[in-house]
């Protein structure tokens, strides 16, 4: 687990924090809180980088022909271009007028510069098909409550399955694993039918509550708890008289943070990107998330002669992906580390 390496005591930071006379080292560290934390983080990053470099065998040893590295770098470069082409296209075309999107070269800018005009359209209800900013708020609400709830429930249940053996715990865990097999489609349509019967169509809870049930999240949290929360620690806390809830929040949860963050990332993305469930259960555009709203605009733009919606689809798509790409770049170490692998290890 690469991220665990960086969490060890690191010499650079503790040496750097010089302790003024008359203060205990603890107080000194607290006084320097701001800088030393940054320094420690930088040191941890360097250490991780060093560990990574050390684990790579020098290229020369493989006895490769000259030019192989160049060739492979070129191939990676070509695939990177393939990956970035649609992103580049959407960035460039978010600055264009509707006519220019179709009439000018797709990979270069054109006058007039229409970015701010396009952007302002996201705050209006054009043609009565719905307001982008409302869909954005809906999506954020569904993703934060649904994804956050999924993470909390997964942490509870994963810890429960990992560190307790109660009657039926094994059976229930295998049942959870079996739920991984059930295809989302085969589950979503029944959910829609149930909502139709229970008059839950157009209820935001019909979107949020099922999003909180994440068998993958529970599996990941169980595996992560297995390797990161020692039983001895729990027993020690029990002997000290701590209750089970207190042990979970004070002892176990801090140790589960990296796993918690990974599950949070996966869950929020899953809700943010969900299309099929909201497409089925919402039929008023004030409840739509971004995915359904953008899908509707695309369809109307093409089939109902509302061509003025095209630039809005483009800039709407761009604004939809920016928060998630930013989130991933900020939280790199949680998907870079061994956590995704944890889903495979067993």
């Amino acid at each position, binding site marked *: 687990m690469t991220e665990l390496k960086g969490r060890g005591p690191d010499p650079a930071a503790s040496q750097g924090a010089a302790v003024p006379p008359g203060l205990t080292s603890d107080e000194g560290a607290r006084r320097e809180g701001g800088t030393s934390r940054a320094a420690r983080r930088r040191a941890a990053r360097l250490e991780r980088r060093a560990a990574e470099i050390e684990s790579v065998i020098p290229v020369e*040893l*493989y*006895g490769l022909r000259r030019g*192989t*590295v160049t060739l492979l*770098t070129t*191939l*990676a470069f070509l*695939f990177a271009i393939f990956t970035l*082409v*649609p992103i580049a296209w959407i960035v460039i075309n978010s600055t264009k007028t509707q006519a220019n*999107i*179709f009439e000018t*070269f*797709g990979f270069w800018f054109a006058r007039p510069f229409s970015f701010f005009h396009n952007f302002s359209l996201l705050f209006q209800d054009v043609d009565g098909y719905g307001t982008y900013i409302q869909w954005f708020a809906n999506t954020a609400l569904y993703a934060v409550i649904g994804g956050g709830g999924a993470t909390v*429930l*997964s942490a509870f*249940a994963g810890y*429960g399955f990992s*560190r*307790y*053996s*109660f*009657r039926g*715990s094994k059976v*229930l865990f295998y049942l959870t694993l079996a739920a991984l*097999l*059930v*295809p989302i*489609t085969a*589950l979503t*349509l*029944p959910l829609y*039918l*149930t909502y139709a*019967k229970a008059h839950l169509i157009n209820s935001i809870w019909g979107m949020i*509550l099922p999003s909180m*049930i994440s068998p993958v999240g529970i599996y990941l949290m169980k595996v992560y708890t297995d390797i990161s929360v020692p039983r001895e620690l729990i*027993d020690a806390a029990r002997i000290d008289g701590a209750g*089970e809830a207190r042990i*979970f929040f004070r002892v176990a949860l801090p140790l589960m943070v990296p796993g918690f963050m990974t599950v949070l990332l996966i869950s929020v993305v899953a809700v943010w*990107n969900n*299309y*099929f469930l909201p*497409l*089925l259960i919402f039929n008023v555009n004030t409840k739509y998330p*971004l*995915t359904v709203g*953008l*899908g509707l605009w*695309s369809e109307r733009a093409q089939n109902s002669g509302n061509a003025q919606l095209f630039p809005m*689809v483009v800039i709407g798509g761009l604004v939809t*992906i920016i928060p998630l790409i930013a989130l*991933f770049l900020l939280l*790199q170490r949680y*998907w870079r580390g061994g956590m*995704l*692998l944890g*889903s*495979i290890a067993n």
Partner: protein
Amino acid sequence: MSAVTATQGTGIGTGTGRRRRSAWIQRRDRRGIWFVVPFLVGFVLFMIVPLVYAVYTSLYTTKIIGGTVFSGASNYTQTLQSSQFWSGVVRVIIYAAIQIPVMLAIAFFFACVFDLGVAKFGRTFRTIFFIPFAVPAVVGAVMWSFLLEPQFGPMVHLANAFGFSGTNFFSPSLILPSIIVIVIWEWTGYNMVILYTALKSVPRDVVEAAILDDTPLWRIIVRIKLPLVRPAIVLLIFLNTIGALQLFTEPLILSYFETGSVSVNFTPTLYLYNTAIAADQTNLAAAGAVILGLVIVVISTASLLFRKRRGEFS
């Protein structure tokens, strides 16, 4: 279970003390169910109940005259005899059989390259490759629809420039390859990161010993690294198979951009969607959902078992 509690008790007190302690632990262990209860409530309400209700609904038929009547297996026989349903199933199987091997080959290739460090800027490339995972399938499909669009899409101009005039990426013969390209764009990075992480855990000394024996690089990859990451590959095949058989978002969005390019039964999920929403035949759609669920469970489990078996023998 008793073995577990015994281990927990070791090192504390004498024989009788240990027994008392393990009884105490067992009592505390039972409280663990309260950690699982919130999830269980949701699991029952939002998974078990809908599935049971779908099976129930699938056994009835709603008629304009006469209301809802019990009709036994008739919705099932109707779906099983529907060529629309099966043509979709066959199409997604063909799609999965092409898309998954191609994507995993690309993902494994780059995972090896970055793991070995035989290309420059590996870190940057890994980040770039992963970006599409953060892009919702709807937005990915919208972007690619604009790029491939028959009249104005820049990719069509590109194809024309290379001498393929009259290329139509939305034509019946090219629509499936176009979807394959879109899905490969979306998922290769994610698969690559998982394989890369798996490769990183291959012990370094094994590889070093092979180098000292003058083993060529490709052989190190095929003979040492590939077998060691086989569990990861098996799991990815399994997960990707489940995903591929449910193909829905990409063809639906493409059909918005070019009416008629994608039929209403292009994939089984589209068929179900159109049966339930457009045709409002919910009972029939419920039967279809049950059948599709079973088909997917059977195919994905079979792929898992088949691979495991081969893994044992080779």
